[in-house]
């Protein structure tokens, strides 16, 4: 299981990286954390002619929480997000999600940008991006553009990035007010790819009515899913147990899971509903102040 031959260049700047990508086009592949790419190379499923290593680029690893906006540089390591205490207090969903990315050694090296650009439908960051209406800053030879998360994830392992573009930053909007959030997933073992996972964030108004709700799922389609039907079933209502059951059932319309060696599509549908209900229960409890997940 040794990688096939490739040329290698380590870019010292975004400009250098773009130049290399432009020169080599489809034959080039960006490597950041490498936690997804190197196994693909080892199995010889990926065979790029050129690897463009962006780890040496400075200034792309920031994690800044400014009011309601969380800005994360593409080279921020999962582990650094996980350890961010302020972020954990402000939005437990994010920290709980990233804590479930593989194991510590993977998180020490893997990057947020790498995860988003890889678009594995079981990648926690992709669900977070959808749920929090993330904006993704992309640079290419013709300049920069901002891609909304809803437009970014196209299908399995495919994003809106052109071969000569680089994802440099992601901005997440964290809702204000009386909110609670969580990320729950079901995996065969601790650290495995999720059979299904749910990030839920609920904001309640003073009458205990759901003012805002975000539900993002992984493992249930060709990309992560923003469960708008599920959200609609809850938004503007008091979140009673029956309402949550309705929401869990409504999510079924948003998802299109696959069958693989670990689980059938039917099973994924079933547990997606279970996890949506459980995630909403926790998010609501936290919004009410019962369990704020800050410990």
């Amino acid at each position, binding site marked *: *299981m*040794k990688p*096939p031959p490739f040329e290698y260049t380590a870019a010292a700047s975004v400009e250098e990286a773009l130049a290399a990508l432009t020169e080599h086009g489809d034959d080039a592949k960006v490597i950041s954390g490498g936690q997804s790419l190197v196994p693909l190379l080892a199995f010889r499923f990926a065979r790029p002619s050129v690897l463009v290593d962006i780890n040496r680029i400075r200034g792309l690893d920031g994690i800044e929480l400014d009011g309601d906006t969380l800005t994360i540089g593409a080279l921020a390591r999962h582990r650094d997000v996980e350890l961010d205490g302020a972020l954990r207090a402000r939005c437990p969903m994010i920290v709980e999600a990233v804590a479930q990315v593989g194991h510590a050694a993977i998180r020490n090296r893997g990057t947020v940008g790498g995860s988003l650009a890889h678009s594995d439908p079981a990648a926690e960051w992709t669900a977070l991006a959808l749920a929090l209406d993330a904006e993704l800053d992309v640079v290419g030879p013709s300049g920069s553009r901002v891609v909304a998360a809803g437009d970014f994830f196209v299908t399995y392992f495919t994003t809106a990035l052109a071969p000569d573009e680089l994802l440099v930053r992601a901005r997440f909007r964290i809702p204000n007010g009386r909110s609670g959030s969580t990320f729950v997933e*079901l995996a*065969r073992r601790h*650290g495995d790819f999720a059979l299904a996972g749910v990030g839920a964030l609920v904001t309640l108004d003073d009458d205990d009515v759901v003012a805002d709700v975000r539900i993002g799922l992984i493992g249930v389609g060709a990309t992560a899913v923003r469960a708008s039907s599920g959200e609609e079933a809850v938004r503007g209502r008091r979140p009673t147990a029956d309402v949550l059951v309705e929401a869990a059932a409504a999510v079924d319309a948003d998802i299109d899971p696959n069958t693989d*060696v670990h689980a059938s599509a039917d*099973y994924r549908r079933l547990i997606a509903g279970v996890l949506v209900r459980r995630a909403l229960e926790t998010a609501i409890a936290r919004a009410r102040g019962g369990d704020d997940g800050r410990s």
Partner: protein
Amino acid sequence: MTATAAPGFVGQRVRRKEDARLVRGAGRFVADITVPGALHAAILRSPFAYAGITRLDVSPALAVPGVEAAFSGADLAGRVGAFIEGARREITPSLLEQVDLEVKSCPLPVLPVDEVLWFGQPVAVVVARDRYAAEDGLEAVEVDYDPRTALPDAESALADGAPVLHPELRDNVAARLFISSGDVDAAFAAAPHVLRERFTFGRHAANAMETRSVQASYDAGRNELTVWITNPRPHLIRLNLSQMLGLPLENVRVLAPDIGGSFGTGLFAEDALIPFLALALGRPVRWTEDRQESLAMTRHARDQVHDLELAYDDEGRILALRDRFLVDAGAYNAYAVTVSYNTAAHLRGQYGIDTFSIEGLNVVTTKAPVAPVRGAGRPEAVFALDRAFDLIAVDRGLDPAEIRRRNLIRPDEMPRAMGMPYRDGKEMVYDSGDFPAQLEQALEAFGYDELRAQQAAWRAEGRLVGVGISSYVEGSGFGPFEGAVVRLDQQGNVHVVTGAKPHGQGLETTLAQVCADEFGVPFDRVTVTTGDTALIQYGIGTFASRSAVTAGTAVGVAAGRLRTKVLAVAAELLEASPADLELTTDGVAARDVGRGVSYEEIHAAAAPGPRNRTPEGLAPGLEEQYYFVPPTVTFASGTHVASVEVDVETGFVRVLRYLTVDDCGQMLNPMIVEGQIQGGVAHGIGTALFEEALYDEDCQLLTGSYMDYLLPTADEVPPIEVGHQVFLSDLNPFGIKGCGEGGAVSPPAAIANAVVDALRPLHINVNRVPLRPEALLDLIRQAKAATNRGQKEGEG
């Protein structure tokens, strides 16, 4: 038997000698050893389960940078012979006279020529300057296959019209056994109740953390072949290579250094292929299996289906047993009836069921060949019987513990003949143990009654917790022999060589403990060397829970004899009687007299030559050799209790607690015994809930990476509580019984029983392992739907 000399190191929790190098990363595993100039091999493997090879051209690989050579099956014809079918040969005539046994010859090939019979089968080999280039070379090999319809399981291989995979076998049954005692038909006909149930045990892969490596170097000038190999049977490798490559046995040296787990035995094509390459190329050649290769083939196991019938009375006492089981042996039944006979022999476990018939078929299919793996047929047998017991308990309205009480062999029946021969042809006799006490000890330590009392309250809270029981017996210390050479040096250190080959069991420590006690020196003065066929003439190796018994006894006896000799030489020098002498740090001293001789003096006195002072009748030198031939196996036993919690919405199972009580006779080192049992239980938990080697509808392997084949981690394995009974074995002077496999035998049964118990109100049955969450959720949903239908009908 009696204990020897003064109690010393045996039985103590002595820290291991192996640790000093292993915690430093200074172990020497085969892949860590570099023979200068060695080339690296990579192997092209079949992507099909069953196909003709219509074209194979390895020559394009030679143009790839770094590649030095490439070979296919055609290149080996006439140059590499067949593997010796050791397991088939070792079946004694006396066994064949006693039971109905047929084992057809089904030898494993090195490289095929015309067709492939399993996904992952080696087809060609490329040799290059490093593994990277060798894999590049593989991609250049040109091969065309003509795929055929695969035979994905035993049932399809037995169906009318199924293609015969090996024409010389005439059908797809490679081996058959039939053992019976008493009038089974009459017992079933007369019985008040009969249980008939099918139990399925999925395919497993052993997954030692170290994958296999082979490294070979050939000295053409001396016609000597040296092979380093991750294999727990170096002498067997040596014998096979000698015959397959046409080299005199004495010219083949096999070294097995540190080995990172084995969990089974077996011979593989690469074991002969790599040495052949060294001969053919005149260069050393090395190969390390990668994990993808390992998952495809290294020690696949289990894969059995049992149709079990139990006749029983109103009190739940078993009157008779009838079992017909199929072993999916994969493409080559290379291990004869090693596993299937174990299944048959251990099926009745701790229970006195004397009217029985057991039929087992080894069926060839287009999957990787199976090998004996930890438990080697016992987990499958225990799963069938223990699940059946719980079904009968439900039928009779009994607690699962109670039905076991009513059927266990009583201590006053021991030693108990079990009405059939063991695989060695000797009468199978449970030599010692107290199974009812073992059960009670396990239940008490677990708090079984307390858990039962709590269970209803938990159910009311919505917590579905269940408890399950399983027990086993294990014939351990299998022969034919194991040997030890024990030698004293000039400083009074003792050097032990044995044919056993540990791979985590701590034999360098436990054998040193035995030697220290039997010879009479401190533990620190003993060194144990294993894994070198040049150092001891005959050896069998480590597997089948045999080495503590066989190597332990060999070392103990040889050490005792060496002590006698050393004292005899010292007695000559001191002009005293050996009975008045004692060993000290520096030499041998005459008690109460203040005279002594140093080890150096004794060593010189024992040396051959004109100044030799060895007593008349004893040869020069301070070395003793002993091969222990066990009379037959000695029976270890164990009872396991597990509790689980089931998430009824997802089918996920969490093992809450796991407890064992095991009898392995004299424990050489309780710390090591407990480690073996804990490791075995973890292995069993993986087998029960997580691990399965899966094939798709074309019989191509689905579980080819660790993303898909799931080994349990520290989060999935609970703390394992280990309890002991000690019934010393009568079959060796030290009272030892084996313990390496027992831990892995009962978990699938105990956990399945616990899951069923947790879901008692739903009346589900778990008759297949491994149990995946989705499969359990299906059972739960079906059961609930049936309950709902029943309620609706009741309302209608």
